[in-house]
């Protein structure tokens, strides 16, 4: 359907590499250990990681080819994430 999934967390590239080889995911996983992008998207959740590290709160953004945000999901409860059908519905609105 032509939507590129990109996952972002504070995990280091080595951690992602190991996870990818175990889980078999083929899409892009990016590392943001210094929370640069996470801050830019205002998603920083301070001290919530192990040893009080900062992490990202869960969030999903659908961005069209012009770089414009077309759909956002900021969950109210971190156990609750976007459902696949929600994302597919949003993706169908893209040209």
């Amino acid at each position: 359907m032509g939507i590129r999934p990109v996952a972002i967390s504070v995990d280091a590239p080595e951690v992602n590499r190991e996870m990818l080889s175990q889980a078999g995911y083929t899409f892009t996983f990016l590392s943001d250990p210094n929370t640069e992008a996470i801050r830019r998207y205002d998603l920083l959740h301070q001290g919530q990681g192990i040893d009080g590290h900062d992490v990202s709160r869960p969030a999903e953004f659908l961005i069209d080819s012009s770089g414009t945000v077309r759909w956002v999901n900021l969950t109210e409860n971190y156990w609750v994430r976007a459902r696949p059908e929600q994302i597919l519905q949003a993706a169908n609105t893209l040209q």
Partner: protein
Amino acid sequence: MTETRNRFNWQIWAGFLLSFLASLSYPVLFVRWPLTRDFPWVTILLYVVAAALLIVGVKRAFAPGRRRIAKVAASILTVLSVAIMGLFLFSILIFARWLPASAGAPHVGQKAPDFSLSDASGKTATLTNLLSEAMSGSASAAKPRGVLLIFYRGHW
């Protein structure tokens, strides 16, 4: 009568075990399906059963003629069960909602802020590149119609 009263108080043990297993069932099992994840109703339903068992068990333990050890055991197991259930409900229903406001997160219609981050192979990726590079694996190798950014907590 004494014979039935001093029989093994299975209700109190079942109630304790059920409160423990019901709590465990959510992160291990029911978190996998949206229907049981968005609200932990299966666990809460099991808690109701566990509470009923505990009430029956406590009544049995404190019935006249029961030994003191039965009362002590029933009290300890009940307190532990209530603590487990309370901790679960707090962490799933209250603590998990303590999220930052994220008022500055990009809104629909806004330009998505660019970034430059390392992928799993150590290669640098920017949002601009991710939007313009052809998708590998697709037959037409066309440019993507869009990018879905999934921010997640990670394993730290």
